[in-house]
């Protein structure tokens, strides 16, 4: 996507000014008009108050990352705006609209060379009974983006239906005033008109699509311990699970949450918990138990800045190491990562399917960016991955729960099945499940757990592979969209690159990876970590041919498509 193919708008304001409301209304109205889009919020750690900004990017096609710079910034006021100034990059083509009486405008906005226009939103709102400046801002943004006033008008009526006629009337009047105030203004470019909608349109966050994907894959029990930025997954599941015959239990801590889902799954119910880095750390011991006792579970880790409490409200990809290597002992398990809001649906569903099929724990590495971003997308296509655990219901003289099957997957007896009684155990056990310290049993059961994951055919979904240039851009998770956009732009500059983004991070797929890298002479690794965890992971498991460069940075600032684009086009051989 070229920079002109999208339009990016930031709405800023102090806490309570209503910037996020404006952002949500813009996304919804633009989506109704046919555009696709992405909305992220930048908020401080305060529960109420503080600063807030809604960042919206709109385009005719899928939007999976934020832009290099914003076309429009509307500051309802500038109180505390300096705290997120660096998250709203501007340039000479940008337009900044602010209230001259809205406090001091951060210097970096003007230093960017952006055009500055004053509109007295507060004063204009005062002239309207119960008028609010954020609705003026909405009108300004709507006018400049090219959203029909009637569309926003209808949306306001719908949203404020419960708040009485005065609220509706005052908001409409403010909206109208905003449209009028911006009438003489133009942005650097207009948004191309949306294509006719061919699919049903969804408005959802990555955390919400993750939750739905998990249910579609078969999840019917969740244990919940709240943690930012994963809580929305659990809150979405709480009312949804009972509708499909499932349930959710709030746990006293993450140790309980993971053990609850292990208990549920032992009883035959596919089960999930969702957490972030600190919670995942607490769950690691029990993930080893699920590996040893071969109990399928799904753990969603919505990554945030770490270590320790880190930056709970900002994104990072630095839980890769703990997810892959954190378990003690040799403990093969599944690690997957969704690549977009839409892909959260697929990856959570596929992870559930794989966990159930392979009787192993699956960690899904989502992140704050994709989890809390709200997207206007075409409804993703349905997929057929529904967890089907191999079960045994008829039993002979001795049931071997951990029988050394050729594919490593031994059919499971569920409590209640007569003759299948066994004890699931974290101790090294025999094929029957009896504890043992025998070298032979230890080796053969470790082999079994490794082989069942290694011998499974994961198919094409293991990675996103696009293009056929001699440079490979290898990235993962929510950076996939930025890398895709950078490659697209580089192609216009005559630089051809291939995107390789593994969705399945563990077990590793050496043959498929080697095939994807065939003929590549240069590799650009892109990741959002401080220590280059993904690069080290690639080095440990795959042969990387030719020259390798790494573009890595920790959170909280996202890696922009322009940075990847520059790394590609400036790479002279």
């Amino acid at each position, binding site marked *: 996507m070229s920079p002109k193919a999208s339009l990016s708008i930031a709405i800023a304001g102090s806490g309570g000014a209503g910037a996020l409301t404006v952002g949500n209304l813009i996304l919804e109205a633009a*989506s*109704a008009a046919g555009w696709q889009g992405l909305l992220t919020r930048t908020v401080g750690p305060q529960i109420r108050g503080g600063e807030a900004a809604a960042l919206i990017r709109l385009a005719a096609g899928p939007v999976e990352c934020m832009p290099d710079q914003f076309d429009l910034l509307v500051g309802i006021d500038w109180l505390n705006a300096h705290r997120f100034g660096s998250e709203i990059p501007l340039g000479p083509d940008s337009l900044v609209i602010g209230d001259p009486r809205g406090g001091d405008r951060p210097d970096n906005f003007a230093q960017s060379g952006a055009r500055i226009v004053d509109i007295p939103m507060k004063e204009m709102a005062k002239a309207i009974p119960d008028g609010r400046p954020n609705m003026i801002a909405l009108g300004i943004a709507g006018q400049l983006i090219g959203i029909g006033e009637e569309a926003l008008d209808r949306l306001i009526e719908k949203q404020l239906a419960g708040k009485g006629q005065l609220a509706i009337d005052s908001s409409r009047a403010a909206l109208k005033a905003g449209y009028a105030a911006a009438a003489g203004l133009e942005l650097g470019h207009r948004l191309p008109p949306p294509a006719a909608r061919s699919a*049903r*349109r*969804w*408005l*959802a966050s990555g955390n*919400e699509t993750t939750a*739905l994907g998990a*249910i*579609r894959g078969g999840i*019917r*029990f969740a*244990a919940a311990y709240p943690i930012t930025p994963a809580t929305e997954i659990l809150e979405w599941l709480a009312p*949804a699970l*009972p*509708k*499909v*015959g*499932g*349930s959710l*239990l709030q*746990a*006293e*801590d993450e*140790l*309980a*949450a*993971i*053990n*609850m889902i*292990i*208990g*549920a*799954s*032992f*009883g*035959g*119910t596919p*089960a999930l918990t969702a957490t972030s880095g600190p919670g995942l750390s607490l769950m690691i011991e*029990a993930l*080893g*138990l699920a590996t040893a*006792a071969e109990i399928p579970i799904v753990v969603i880790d919505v990554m945030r800045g770490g270590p320790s409490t880190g930056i709970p409200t900002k994104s990072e990809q630095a839980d890769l190491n703990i997810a892959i290597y954190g378990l003690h002992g040799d403990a093969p398990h599944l690690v997957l990562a969704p690549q977009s809001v839409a892909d959260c649906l697929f990856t959570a569903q596929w992870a559930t399917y794989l966990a159930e099929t392979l009787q192993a724990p699956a960690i899904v590495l989502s992140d704050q960016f994709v989890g809390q971003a709200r997207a*206007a997308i075409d*409804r993703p296509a349905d997929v057929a991955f529904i967890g089907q655990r191999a079960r045994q219901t008829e039993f002979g003289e001795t049931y071997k729960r951990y029988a050394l099957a050729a594919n490593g997957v031994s059919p499971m*007896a569920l*409590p*209640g099945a007569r*003759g*299948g*009684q*066994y*004890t*699931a*155990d*974290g*101790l090294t056990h025999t094929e029957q*499940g*009896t504890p043992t310290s025998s070298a032979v049993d230890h080796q053969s059961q470790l082999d079994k757990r490794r082989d069942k994951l290694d011998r499974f055919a994961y198919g094409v979904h293991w990675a996103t592979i696009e293009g056929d240039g001699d440079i490979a851009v290898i990235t993962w998770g929510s950076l996939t969209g930025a890398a895709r956009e950078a490659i697209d732009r580089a192609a216009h500059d005559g630089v051809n690159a291939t995107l390789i983004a593994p969705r399945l991070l563990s077990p590793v797929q050496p043959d498929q990876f080697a095939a994807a890298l065939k003929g590549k002479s240069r590799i650009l690794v892109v990741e959002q970590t401080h220590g280059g965890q993904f690069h080290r992971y690639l080095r440990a498991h795959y042969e990387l041919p030719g020259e390798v460069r790494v573009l890595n940075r920790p959170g909280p600032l996202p890696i922009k498509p322009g940075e990847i684009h520059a790394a590609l086009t400036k790479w002279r051989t």
Partner: protein
Amino acid sequence: MSVVDLQRTCKPADYKSAVKPIWCPGCGDYHVLMSFTRAFAQLGLPPEQIAVISGIGCSSRIPAYTNCYGFHGVHGRSLAVAAGLKVTRPDLTVVVASGDGDGYSIGGNHFLHACRRNIDMTYVVMDNRVYGMTKGQPSPTTEPDFDTALSPGGTGLSPFHPLVIALASGANFIARCFSGEPNETADILVEAIRHPGFSFVEILSPCVTFRPDEKEWKSLVHPAPVATTNDPARAARRIMTDDGFNIGILYRGERRPYGPEFGAQAADLAELECEFEQ
């Protein structure tokens, strides 16, 4: 289940597996195992309908010694495993086995919340006032002057009072047993399993290896002199003032057990995505 099937499973031996316990000769836990199998036989429960869940420690070895479905998990988390199982499989009889280290130290937080949550299960803690499997360290119920390599001269700490904690946290049934009285213990376990909600049964179970002094318990235990109460205030006074060797059902509450309301199976998962549709 037919009558013939019931008769077939009504002998204690039917609930015992062929796995040989690792416990020391004379360990109180052998008797607890005997009480388990007798209680299950008295209840006439098919063994496959019972799940015995445990953590780590000598007592936590018990699931594999039964012929029920068993779960031997990580240290201290048995109650959480049991909660997930029982909520999703209310048809099963869930019995949780633990010890004073597993249950009161590393698993202490789960104990509080399991009492409070009141899911229908029976929690059996074999209390020998010592970490046996790791060879003799003080546990939360160990006396303050018990001299060990890890606590030379004793911990100097007041012992944890599990029955009081259980009562304060909302347990719906509280009993104390002595492993040396397997028939009486089996009778109490039957009552505990039948009682709706979270039933807590503390079994004094001597460790003959690291606490040979506990052989004396046999002469110290005595039946509780008064009838079971459903009044928490009365139960609290009795439990806090007794000599710690009062055997019997000390509290029987009337709280409604926790259970999620399962919705009817939706005709179509498509209903769930309605809120995404624009």
